[in-house]
């Protein structure tokens, strides 16, 4: 795609961005959706206007959708099934003393 100095593409469609918001109480940014924007700065501003109008967040990340590397749904079996038969990996076999709260 042809770009000018400010990153506005020569095509009619702006690139797609994925938006992550950290809420007031949350520690981690969570994926909330996607939007179109001509460049990174405008992606943040659009995300502010589209996804934080109702006080949803205190921090925004935006990343080009094309930069996200995803696992393939077709690889589900080799990727995830080997873990499902290994219950001993869950820390559920330790007796917890009664005095320990909030675990």
């Amino acid at each position: 795609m042809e770009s000018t100095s400010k990153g506005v593409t020569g095509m009619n469609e702006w690139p797609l961005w994925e938006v992550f918001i950290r809420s007031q109480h949350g520690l981690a940014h969570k994926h909330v959706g996607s939007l179109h924007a001509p460049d990174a700065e405008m992606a943040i501003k659009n995300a502010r206007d589209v996804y934080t109008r109702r006080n949803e967040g205190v921090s925004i990340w935006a990343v080009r959708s094309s930069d996200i590397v995803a696992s393939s749904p077709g690889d589900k079996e080799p990727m995830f099934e080997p873990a499902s038969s290994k219950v001993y990996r869950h820390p559920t076999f330790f007796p917890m003393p009664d005095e320990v709260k909030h675990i």
Partner: protein
Amino acid sequence: MNDQRTLFDYLLRRADSDLVLAQRLGEWVGHGPVLEEDIATTNVGLDLLGQSRLWFAYAGEVEAGFNNGAGRSEDQLAFLRDAAEFRNLMLVEQPNGDYAVTMARQFYFDVWHELSLRGLTASADARIAEIAAKALKEVRYHTERSADWVIRLGDGTEESHRRMQAAVDDLWMYTGEMFEVDAIELALIDAGVACDAGTLAAPWRQRVDAIFSEATLTVPAGVWMQGSGGRGGKQGVHTEHIGPMLAQMQWLQRAYPGAQW
């Protein structure tokens, strides 16, 4: 004119510019170039509408003070006055045009708005200072956003540059009014209530020059300024565009007086 009437008039100037620009931005609803812009521009309009309500509410209270307790409500002030009673800047009543025109109008206004609100946060009138401080937070974002668009369209494609340059050229003649000080404002400046619009011209120009230079736009020059000499929007003298706009904005309250949601 006594002090309270002077203050009332000044508060209408603040309220009306916010209201009229909010109405113009509202005209973009459902017509924005992309969904994200539709929402963002409307957000700015809603911010301005909220600010106009704060000014109108205070204006109504001030009016009650010199009018035997009969101060008009926000709705009455917004929907039941005719064009000649509106005190907004002529800049904000100009039609939306294409997106470059909308953003040029917004940028000229935002830079002025931010500077004047900053001045008003030091007003001797505590209520004005309070409203200005609240509005300033919203307006700082407005300025960033419209400046971004001026830069992107100015330094974008050949067509966007041509349109942006035409837009800033066409609207330039309405920018002089923002820095005019008439007898009403002078009285309030002396009382420490209003901010001296004359002092905003230099910092405004500095900001505009900086953004235009980044946007590869030429600053218009040698243009006669509309509304100079105390005959502009702030004195109720308007361009032909305000009438049709008010008709659209006010028809419901005119047809069904006192109608509520």
